[in-house]
């Protein structure tokens, strides 16, 4: 069983979590061009890399960020989004 560490609840089985996709900046809808908006809606970066991703601990409803290597499936660290705001993840 693979284990992921929830910042609130600690290490839990991966089956208790839901994947929410890569953390991405939303362009300003009022100022984005059609091409920029389409790129945001549909396009994804899926080259193997270390990414910041949204995850949810579904048993408790906690959303948080995981820094994970998508080639090796090793999670480097997890933290709450609010606490990281303004700083580098």
């Amino acid at each position, binding site marked *: *069983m*693979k284990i992921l560490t929830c910042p609130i609840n600690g290490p839990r089985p*991966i*089956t208790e979590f*839901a*994947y929410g*996709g*890569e953390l991405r900046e939303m362009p300003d809808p009022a100022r984005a061009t059609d*091409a920029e908006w*389409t*790129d945001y*809606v*549909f*396009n*994804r*970066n*899926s*080259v*193997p890399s270390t990414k910041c*991703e949204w995850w949810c601990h579904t048993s408790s409803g906690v959303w948080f960020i995981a820094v994970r290597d*998508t*080639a*090796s*499936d090793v999670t480097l660290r997890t933290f709450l989004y609010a606490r990281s705001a303004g700083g580098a993840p």
Partner: protein
Amino acid sequence: MFTRHERLKSAYDVVIIGAGGHGLAAAYYLARDHGMTDVAVLDQSYIGGGNTGRNTTIIRSNYLTPDGVKFYDESVRLWRDLSQDFDLNLFYSTRGHFTLAHTDSAMRTMRWRAEVNKHFGVQSEAVDAKTVAEAIPMMDLSCGGHGPPVLGALYHAPGAIARHDAVAWGYGRGADRRGVEIHQETQLLGVELEDHGSGPAVVGVRTNRGRIATRKLLCAVAGSTPGVLAMVGLRSPIHIHPLQAMVSEPLKPWLDPIIVSGSLHIYVSQSARGELVMGASLDPYELHSTRSTLDFAESLSAHLLELFPFLSDVRIVRQWAGMADMTPDFAPIMGKTPVQGFYLDSGWGTWGFKATPVCGKTMSYTVANDQDHPLIRGFAFDRFAHYALTGEKGAASVGH
């Protein structure tokens, strides 16, 4: 079976990345139908070692959109003649295909698919639980009382299975005999582009065995598509999730049709060797790896036992995974791209094996004429920019 070429030539008319079923089929039809034999097919590993050898070999055309139904129906037509065409036994076996419906809304989707299919001359019909019970008497329609029972199904008589490795070998051998060069263990390192004012155009590729000049490059890989797209500066909606599968020990023949249940997230058929070939939903998160998990084997087995409790003593003998190019609308991304001379046969998610012949046909036409084949226009690279998606999710074999 294949010629081994000691070195790459310095130039080819066409370079194809990926010696799986799709890439080799395109090479085969380029040589046979379009007279283009100065073609190199490169693969970083071995022939058919990617998703061609990792799928569950189900062939069907009971899709949901007109684009999808017409495209896959042409593929089924091509499949039936392939063994003759190759002079190689593909063990193509028409079994009939039941997509079980466990809810009223699922029954409604089955009727919808049946009507679209019939409109295009594809044999599909919605059937009731009694018909399912007569066709597969060993199935527990109540699902052990653990979940919603089987109410009926979409029955698709042309549903078939085939020997997947032989498909790659047949196309590869046919292409090889017509002068196409297949280079295994040859990795793409980069794509050389030039822009003379009309946008970027392909002029060559770099590999671990040297540079090749070419003006036509077909990308027919899976799992590595985003990496190849990055080499030509394109972004796409393709994201990679592993899809796992497994087989049981060989059993006496007992299961003739192919069974799919969207509610139980399983599909199963019995191969010519007697093994049950089984698959389920995608892995739940992005991963660029072909590792297997115990979670998958456990959950698939549990769901299969709801339908077939008598299999509880049967052992699993192999388990594996492939990397699937998922798209937002569950349709592929095929044809020309904004980069001149760069052609794409991608986004084949969990539905690519059945399309192998028609992909070869349509992509060879597209590469030879520098014009999208009419059958693939609904799958164009730029459909997302126009918000003109080709929604096939309702026809995915299980709810991914």
